[in-house]
């Protein structure tokens, strides 16, 4: 046995580690939570790390998971050892190929970080709905329950697939295992090599397609032979379980870790047994050990590793004969089935043994099935005990749920949430941080320090926010002398750190601290005032549970060390200083070593800055005396604004306050329907500074509101008569627009909804001629402005919106008065996408249906708790849905077809009912043009009249007419998504929809990279840009989607960049919607993934267009119909070299720090491509004779 070596990794890395070593070709596509596996593989390949046979695997990113599966199939057929990584919808897309790969008995391993499949809602979190959807494909399925098991099972899967010829799907729980960091024993290459039989590799190659000895696969067979041929594989499946067990035994000899297909843990004479797989099995393992050891309970757990082929023989062998009742727990839901899949397998196995007369049981056990842990719902020892308690009942509940409260059918099991099996030997720490303060990174680092310098086992799990700006992170860390079988969050912490004072206002941060625990607070308050700064209920808990309190002004220490807002190193030092995990001196020395190791590659200045921070920390860390009485008079604030509608307050408010787990089933909509316009109640207060308007200086151009990503700066022009009971600081001046003469004008900030990005200030063109540091908008600290501006905001909201008929939508200063119906989303501060989305909502929101591709825009558009799509005063607003990632164009087209069909039926009914309705009204409705707000409004009035008339008519036609009358008002269908969708995974559908001739509007939010999944290359990524899967800089030019769309001739195409030319952007949106046919707008969207200053992103957009790398144009087929050139080039000739723009963004510039030669070459190519492309577009613009 080789010497043991330990590393701290997450489950994804553990899987990729072995998969990479066993593969020659790796075909990938990003999807949460599996993306990291592909990224690791790509990273290792780019560093030249070799596989077991000394070659660097080829890692290839495809356009979709379906594409990746196809490439895997091809690679396998051509003889290479091949793997892939995916989850959820990605796995669904691979299924067709999986049937083929299994049907052809091809050894392969697919790695799945199991994730929820979208149903009534999408969820990025973990359960087994995806892998269960693939269980019929013929793949063997192997489950791992912990990070160590992931590495081990991956090896066993490779060994077994080569021997059995059955492809393997190796799965582990998404996020819970894929993202959990654990200290594990790493497998040496020799061990993995020992497990892989080279003769079997050779056989795999010999079966490959090879023109030297050709064969043919993929025949089409007919009723005469298909069936028989299909039955030939059975012997392979029958042989598979034994092979896997033999490989597990071999693995045990090499490593000392013995696995079984079904692994029993517990009392040998257990009466109550849980059957379960993956991380839940690990938690049950620990709970069973606790119950048997401490209470002598006759309980056990059967951990399922080989789920398919399901070996009844092995399963029954492992169960104790004493078992009286079995609970089978499935982490999936199969509506309409008699039970979930694993439950049915168990019932079937036991029934067969009884039927065959081979049953070993003293008495046929009572088997119940239950569901747990959907979408990473916590699964704790308390719940596990609840399941055992149920089994002990005379008639245990079946088809139950555990971990939630089902008050509709009362299917949930009760359990004592206080039940806890945490060992006192384990340090359990919770850290509340902000994404931007570096808390998670520091904690990952602490785990490495402790893992590498002590014999302790370590575990880290990180809970992130659903928002991309001002996001909270909660880190759950454990350190202990024994293997940590604790795949659930820390609820009994002996150390809690609150890295941001503002959390005290919103959350009960000390809730999870045990008696005598330690509470560390980062606060700017002097140490003698810290106690009084804590809210009442938290003071009470601290006194009652004798909690020790420490405080540090980490912000000041960090700033003095040059680290700005990143307090990570300071807080990490505090943790080591007071938690006692390591002796203080040793801990400090290790932190310093680790700083040099971690930051060394970023340069000596960065290292020094962090070292300085460590040195300054201890002198600024104080223990806070805890008095015996509560002294605070204030309490944590409610999570939502007052006057919130009941449902929103009850449900969304609970989610916001982090009590979502406590909500019972009955409060939820049954079909995924959710109210819009609820972000307004959230009041996030995340801005440090907000814009302040100088009404005298302002020229009322509207540019600030146009670029605001969160609709938190608004304009109104209104009659002075509304200026009654005006708040003291509410600002207004006469409207400058001559058409609104006599009106008053206000630009108002929503102080608690603004993220403080500052893009409005960048857009403001007015500099005070007497004071160049002052503009018509300046950023100023939010706290002193908050109360007054809130009052102003409330007043502003009550000032009526301007009549849309009076607004010229082609004029920005007027158009921006339109009320945004997309507000306060969870997008990044400074987001480049949302201004476009908001623009659609302003221009057409009251009659728009939105089909939204999965990605950033579906997350900030629809991620709970609150919804940013909003309504106007009439209750109208965009109706929105997200179907999938790959089908969005088709989804939107379907909406159009439905709208058109219903409009057609409504028109038909109008004709049929013309005498009941009145011929004049019918003709007016049918003949109405709806080309502008005035005409649309008039049609709405007619429809109101129509409904009025129909009230007196009782025919079936009249009822149908009432149902469909709204379709007589023009509807706008918007298909929105990012470049990952439009250029890659959804391109086939997008192309088909463009070719359809139907009136849909496609908005491509082009960030030139997969933003939502963390910056992977798309076909939109520009030449020379660095992204994941293009670590050496993208070698090829960006796909010209606009040019491809133009080739149809009847598609409206526009390329826009609002930061460069806002008037052109507005023109394009208006024209696209007006065009009665397919339109596509490709909208340049700066992104956090570009490595830019997100408070000044517009200058990048200007430089981008000035360099010619992005060309502004519009192609309008209606011009061609009028015999004019349909192509209008809106960009001037490039005036700066592309290098000047590219060096403004880290995504390009970083290449100079990685590979200076490639940097120069690719910059040159980028320049050449840009010049060539501009020449071509100039040619298109110059054409005559249409």
């Amino acid at each position, binding site marked *: 046995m080789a010497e043991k070596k330990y590393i701290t990794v997450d489950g994804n890395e553990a899987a990729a580690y072995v998969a990479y070593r066993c593969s020659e070709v790796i075909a990938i596509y990003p999807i949460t939570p599996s*993306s*990291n596996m592909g990224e690791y593989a790509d990273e290792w390949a780019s560093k030249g790390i070799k596989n077991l046979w000394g070659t660097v695997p080829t890692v290839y990113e495809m356009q979709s998971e379906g594409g990746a599966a196809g490439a895997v199939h091809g690679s396998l057929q051509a003889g290479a050892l091949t793997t892939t990584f995916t989850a959820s919808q990605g796995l669904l897309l691979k299924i067709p190929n999986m049937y083929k790969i299994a049907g052809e008995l091809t050894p392969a391993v697919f790695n799945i970080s199991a994730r929820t499949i979208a149903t009534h809602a999408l969820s990025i979190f973990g359960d087994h709905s995806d892998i269960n959807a693939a269980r019929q494909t013929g793949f063997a399925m192997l489950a791992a329950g912990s990070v160590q098991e992931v590495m081990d099972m991956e090896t066993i899967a490779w060994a077994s697939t080569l021997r059995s010829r059955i492809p393997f799907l190796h799965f582990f729980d998404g996020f819970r295992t894929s993202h959990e960091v654990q200290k594990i024993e790493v497998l040496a290459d020799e061990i993995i090599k020992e497990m892989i039989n080279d003769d079997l590799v050779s056989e795999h190659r010999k079966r490959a397609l090879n023109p030297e000895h050709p064969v043919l696969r993929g025949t089409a067979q007919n009723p005469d032979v298909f069936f028989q041929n299909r039955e030939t594989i059975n012997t392979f499946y029958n042989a598979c379980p034994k092979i896997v067990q033999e490989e597990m035994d071999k693995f045990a000899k090499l490593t000392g870790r013995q696995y079984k297909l079904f692994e029993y843990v517990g009392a040998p004479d257990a009466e109550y047994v849980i059957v379960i797989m993956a991380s839940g099995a690990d938690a049950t393992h620990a709970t069973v050990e606790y119950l048997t050891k401490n209470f002598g309970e006759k309980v056990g757990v059967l951990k399922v590793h080989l789920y398919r082929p399901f070996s009844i023989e092995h399963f029954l062998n492992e169960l104790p004969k004493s078992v009286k009742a079995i609970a089978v727990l499935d982490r999936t839901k199969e509506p309409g089935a008699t039970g979930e899949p694993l439950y049915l397998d168990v019932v079937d196995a036991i029934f067969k043994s009884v039927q065959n007369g081979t049953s070993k049981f003293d008495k046929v056990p009572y088997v119940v099935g239950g569901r747990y842990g959907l979408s990473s719902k916590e699964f704790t020892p308390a719940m596990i005990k609840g399941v055992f308690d149920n089994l002990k009942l005379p008639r245990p509940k079946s088809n139950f749920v555990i971990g939630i409260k089902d008050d509709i059918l009362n299917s949930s099991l009760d359990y004592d949430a206080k039940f806890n099996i945490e060992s006192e030997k384990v340090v359990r720490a919770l850290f509340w941080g902000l994404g*931007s303060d570096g808390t998670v*990174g520091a904690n990952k680092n602490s785990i490495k320090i402790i893992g590498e310098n002590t014999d302790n086992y370590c575990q880290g799990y990180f809970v*992130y926010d659903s928002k991309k700006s001002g996001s909270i992170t909660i880190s759950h860390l454990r350190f202990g002398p024994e293997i940590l079988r604790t795949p659930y969050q820390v609820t009994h912490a002996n150390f809690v750190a609150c890295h941001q004072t503002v959390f005290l206002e919103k959350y009960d941060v000390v809730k999870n601290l045990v008696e005598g625990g330690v509470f560390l607070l980062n606060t700017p308050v002097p140490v003698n005032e810290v106690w009084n700064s804590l809210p009442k209920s938290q003071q009470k808990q601290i006194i009652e549970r004798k909690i020790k309190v420490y405080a540090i002004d980490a912000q000041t220490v960090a700033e003095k060390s040059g680290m700005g807002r990143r307090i990570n190193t300071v807080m990490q030092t505090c943790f080591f200083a007071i938690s006692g995990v390591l002796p203080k001196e040793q801990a400090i020395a290790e932190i310093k070593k680790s700083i040099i190791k971690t930051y060394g590659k*970023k340069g000596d*200045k960065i290292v020094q800055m962090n070292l300085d921070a460590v040195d300054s920390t201890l002198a600024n860390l104080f223990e806070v005396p805890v008095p015996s009485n509560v002294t605070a008079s204030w309490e944590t604030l409610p999570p939502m604004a007052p006057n919130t509608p009941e449902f929103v307050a009850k449900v969304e408010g609970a989610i916001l306050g982090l009590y979502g787990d406590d909500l019972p089933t009955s409060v939820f909509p049954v079909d995924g329907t959710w109210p819009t316009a609820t972000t307004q109640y959230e009041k996030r207060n995340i801005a440090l500074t907000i814009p302040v308007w100088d009404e005298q200086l302002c020229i009322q151009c509207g540019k600030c509101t146009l670029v605001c990503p969160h609709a938190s700066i608004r304009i109104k022009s209104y009659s002075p008569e509304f200026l009654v009971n005006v708040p003291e600081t509410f600002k207004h001046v006469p409207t400058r627009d001559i058409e609104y003469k006599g009106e008053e004008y206000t630009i108002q900030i929503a102080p608690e909804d603004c993220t403080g990005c500052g893009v409005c200030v960048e857009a403001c063109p007015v500099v005070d001629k007497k004071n160049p540091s002052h503009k018509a908008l300046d950023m100023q600290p939010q706290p002193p402005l908050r109360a007054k501006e809130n009052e102003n905001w409330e007043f502003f909201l009550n000032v009526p919106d301007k009549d849309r008929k009076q607004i010229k939508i082609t004029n920005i200063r007027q158009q921006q008065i339109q009320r945004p119906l997309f507000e306060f989303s969870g997008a*990044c501060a400074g987001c480049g996408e949302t201004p476009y989305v908001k623009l659609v909502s302003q221009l057409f929101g009251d009659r728009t249906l939105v089909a939204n591709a999965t990605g950033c825009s579906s997350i900030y558009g629809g991620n709970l708790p609150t919804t940013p799509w909003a309504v106007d005063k009439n209750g109208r607003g965009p109706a929105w849905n997200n179907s999938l990632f790959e089908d969005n164009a088709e989804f939107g087209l379907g909406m159009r077809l439905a709208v058109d069909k219903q409009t057609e039926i409504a028109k038909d009914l109008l004709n049929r009912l013309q005498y009941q309705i009145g011929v004049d009204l019918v003709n007016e409705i049918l003949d109405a043009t709806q080309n502008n707000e005035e005409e649309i409004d008039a049609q709405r009035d007619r429809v109101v009249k129509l409904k009025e008339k129909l009230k007196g008519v009782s025919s079936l036609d009249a009822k149908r007419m009432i149902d469909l009358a709204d379709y007589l008002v023009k509807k706008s269908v918007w298909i929105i998504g990012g470049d990952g969708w439009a250029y890659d995974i959804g391109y086939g559908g997008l192309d088909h929809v463009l070719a359809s001739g139907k009136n849909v509007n496609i908005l491509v939010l082009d960030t030139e990279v997969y933003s939502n999944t*963390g910056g992977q290359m798309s076909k939109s990524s520009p030449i020379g840009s660095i992204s994941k899967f293009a670590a050496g800089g993208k070698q090829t030019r960006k796909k010209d989607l606009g040019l491809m769309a133009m080739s149809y001739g009847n598609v409206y195409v526009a390329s826009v960049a609002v930061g460069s030319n806002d008037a052109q952007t507005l023109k394009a949106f208006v024209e696209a919607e007006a065009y009665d046919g397919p339109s596509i707008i490709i909208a340049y969207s700066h992104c956090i993934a570009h*490595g830019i200053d997100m408070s000044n992103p517009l200058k990048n957009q200007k430089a981008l267009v000035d360099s010619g790398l992005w060309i502004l144009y519009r192609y309008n087929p209606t011009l061609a119909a009028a015999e004019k050139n349909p192509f209008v080039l809106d960009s001037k000739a490039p005036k700066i070299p592309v290098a000047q723009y590219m060096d403004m963004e880290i995504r390009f510039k970083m290449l100079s720090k990685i590979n200076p030669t490639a940097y120069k070459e690719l910059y040159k190519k980028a320049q050449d491509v840009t010049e060539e492309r501009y020449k071509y577009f100039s040619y298109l613009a110059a054409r005559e004779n249409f």
Partner: protein
Amino acid sequence: MNLKTEYLGLKIQSPFILSASPIDENINNLKRLEELGIGAVVLHSLFEEQLVDEQFELDYHLTHGTESFAEATSYFPNYDEYKLGPEEYLEHIHKVKNNIKVPVIASLNGSTIGGWTKYAKNMQEAGADALELNIYNIPADFNLTASDIEDAYLKILQEVKSIVNIPVAVKLSPYFTNFANMVKRFDEVGADGFVLFNRFYQPDININTYEVEPKIELSNSAISRIELRWIAILKNKIKANLAATGGIITGQDAFKMILAGANATQIFASIARNGLDYLTIMMREFVQIMEEKGFNNVADVVGIACQKNIPNPSAFERAQYMKALTSYKLHF
């Protein structure tokens, strides 16, 4: 005609040296200049401050927005190393040395003593034949005295000299209360040469946006007077060599500088404006004037008209400046 001469103890094939500029970034340019007769090349400056800024910039962007959202815990690939130090510059020295035979002088602008010495050593190790210390900053600190600054400058040279054994020239601006004294002190510390003068990029204000914009203008012959004066004053009074830079546009300009006492002249604006091959014209003009004056050897010309040698030495000193201005006015 023998154009060969010596500068910083290096043998150079002509007194024309490429000044620190972006021209050297393309090695083909250097090869061409070598063919045309360039005496030596000074590489563009390595700025320590820029290296540090780039570290901060990269660190900010590699961490900004990370570990905040479950689906995107990072936005860029992970690399084992970044070329954030002088590696690229050092590789460049190495490459230049492998491609041309004329002496290669590396140019350095440090911001800390540690930076000056570390990078100077690196440059020597990378094969530079000499160093040019580009001591460049705008002292705007109201509490800093002239002697503080001067002492700091001397310390830089002292430290660099203590750590390298190749010749070290100092490129200076003329903005010292007593420039002659400053040069003397540098000379005593062991400067091998002085490059006169460093021209700073000067700010301009955009009258529409009120934004400050750096202006870069190529030099012309007229601006070379100041270095002409100082070269003439310094020649034969110090041990170190002298090189003129700024405003050497024609062969005549170069000839004048050598007459004043320069061992070499550094050129940039002329070839930036007219192309690399313009060096041929400058050299032709230079040779022509040498021939006209009856010289066969550049070394014979150096310092003929320096202050020490001319009959009216005060012509080069400040008092004469007023006179010159007065006579200039008389033309109107």
